[in-house]
């Protein structure tokens, strides 16, 4: 009872900071590090680092085939991690969880295996304007291989998918809709369950890019109703090099494997093979053993805190950032306003452009104040084109970020703009000029 109450209480990031040794440092002399780049890759707690060290110091060997104690321990740890992921996302079976190298590898696996087997010339692949390159390029490649056509569900000017028009785009030629649960640039939280519902009714397979949602809010593939779902370990307090592809059992069973090699076979003959059962069928080669085990530790860590609390904490940080940053003259905040649409429309990141200077200069100057943000196109060039900008600056938040850090960002940003305001500077003329 007391525990349940504690778990319902607001998350206090100050109490978690000690778990993240990397955050307790100063940079550029005496500036406390303000890490606001977790959407690119999060930091990881001591519990996860310890799990990696423990694996390599005590329980490491190759999995599945060794007849010795270390291999058995490593296999147990690896398969336990799979069951943790299964619980984490609400999958029906552990063998619906495929360990991959990350979200990119997961999506490419679907494109190369399910895609090549099921998509043909003239078929339609439905995407959205807010996708990460990793949820665009594999489909462009599939379209190139098969002669399929890529279409885009429209998006409003402020960055909301026009889901009420989805019906127009789910034609009898549509084979697949691939879309992100949360935009890594706009911060928009998309209505995943509604899109999946309409797609399912139209007989269209859904691929959900959960790279930006799984670390920050509860994921339930049954409630979402998706067919495939992908996310990465390194954005979720876990190690890089491991990710997850979830697929419904019937789909995975009916799909040929993509990568060929060891582990994914049942029997190999002189000139042919028969594939292994799930999940090994999609896990050719030695998998990311220690990273997967540590991903299990990351899931334990996040679930002990509670994804709902993490999400609520990030929404509060976004509300604060939105209020502070909107007050800066010459700023344009990207994505839907949480003031106008409510807190649930956004996940824990805010991207923006200033009238001056450029995103890279902003990031450089913020870095000098100890504030780490992302600058560039965030692997969403088509979205940036649509927004009429070449680059933006993104501050992204996680469970360990504090309101004081949002203030540090806003204060530093106001200083940056002030520094670059036109001040009647004149270059020293060296040669004849206009």
């Amino acid at each position, binding site marked *: 009872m007391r525990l349940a109450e504690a778990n319902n209480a607001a998350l206090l990031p100050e109490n978690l900071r000690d778990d993240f040794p990397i955050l307790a440092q100063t940079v550029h002399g005496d500036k406390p590090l303000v890490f606001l780049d977790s959407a690119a890759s999060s930091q990881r707690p001591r519990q996860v680092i310890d799990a990696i060290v423990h694996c390599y110091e005590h329980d490491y060997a190759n999995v599945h085939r060794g007849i010795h104690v270390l291999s058995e321990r490593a296999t147990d740890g690896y398969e336990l991690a799979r069951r943790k992921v299964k619980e984490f996302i609400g999958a029906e079976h552990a063998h619906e969880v495929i360990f991959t190298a990350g979200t990119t590898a997961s999506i490419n696996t679907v494109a190369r295996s399910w895609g090549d087997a099921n998509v043909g010339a003239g078929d339609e692949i439905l995407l959205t304007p807010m996708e990460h390159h990793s949820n665009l390029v594999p489909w462009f490649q599939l379209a190139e291989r098969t002669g399929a056509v890529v279409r885009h569900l429209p998006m409003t000017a402020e960055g909301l998918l026009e889901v009420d028009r989805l019906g127009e785009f789910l034609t009898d030629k549509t084979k697949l809709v691939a879309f992100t649960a949360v935009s890594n640039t706009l911060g928009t939280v998309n209505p995943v369950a509604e899109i999946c519902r309409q797609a399912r009714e139209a007989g269209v397979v859904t691929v959900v890019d959960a790279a930006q949602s799984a670390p920050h809010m509860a994921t339930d593939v049954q409630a979402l109703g998706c067919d495939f779902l992908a996310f990465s370990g390194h954005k979720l307090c876990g190690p890089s090099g491991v990710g997850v592809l979830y697929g419904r059992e019937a789909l995975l069973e009916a799909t040929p494997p993509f990568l060929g090699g060891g582990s994914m076979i049942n029997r190999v003959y002189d000139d042919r093979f028969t594939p292994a059962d799930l999940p090994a069928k999609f896990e050719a080669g030695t998998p990311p053993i220690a990273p997967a085990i540590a991903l299990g530790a990351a899931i334990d860590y996040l679930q002990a805190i509670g994804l709902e609390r993490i999400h609520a904490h990030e929404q509060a940080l976004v509300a604060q950032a939105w209020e502070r940053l909107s007050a800066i003259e010459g700023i344009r905040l990207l994505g839907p306003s949480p003031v106008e649409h409510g807190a649930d429309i956004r996940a824990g990141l805010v991207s923006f452009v200033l009238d001056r200077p450029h995103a890279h200069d902003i990031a450089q100057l913020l870095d000098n104040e100890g504030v780490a943000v992302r600058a*560039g196109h965030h692997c969403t060039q088509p979205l940036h084109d649509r927004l009429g900008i070449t680059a933006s600056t993104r501050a992204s938040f996680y469970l360990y970020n504090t309101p004081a850090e949002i203030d540090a960002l806003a204060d530093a940003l106001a200083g940056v703009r002030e520094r670059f305001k036109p001040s009647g500077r004149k270059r020293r003329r060296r040669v004849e000029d206009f």
Partner: protein
Amino acid sequence: MPSEEEIYQEHILDHYEDPFHQGPLAGETHAHEDKNPLCGDVVRIALKVDDASKGGAAKIVDCAFEGDGCVISQASASMLLEELCGKTVDEVEAFSAEDMLKLYGPRLTPNRQKCCLLSWRVIRQAVHSPV
């Protein structure tokens, strides 16, 4: 790590706010445009090249740049054109990446060197790209 003071020196901010020959160039004979795929910085350099038909070396008699991007990419374009305007094509080709970084001044991390060298790459293509 270079500090803010080193990267955004006064003479660089001067070039950013008051650039050398920024805008279109009437009567351009050569031009090239490129961008920095990482950050989206874009620079187009237009040249008026005296083609040496009257004897002597081919020479940049006028030049201008248009672009969009970070302070480093745009200020370095201004500094480069100021340096090379009036020079021969041979002199443009002899102007090395190292010369460009030296002209800019402050020490840059490898990522920001790409911003600084964008216009340098563009002008080397531009002298061989008649419009």
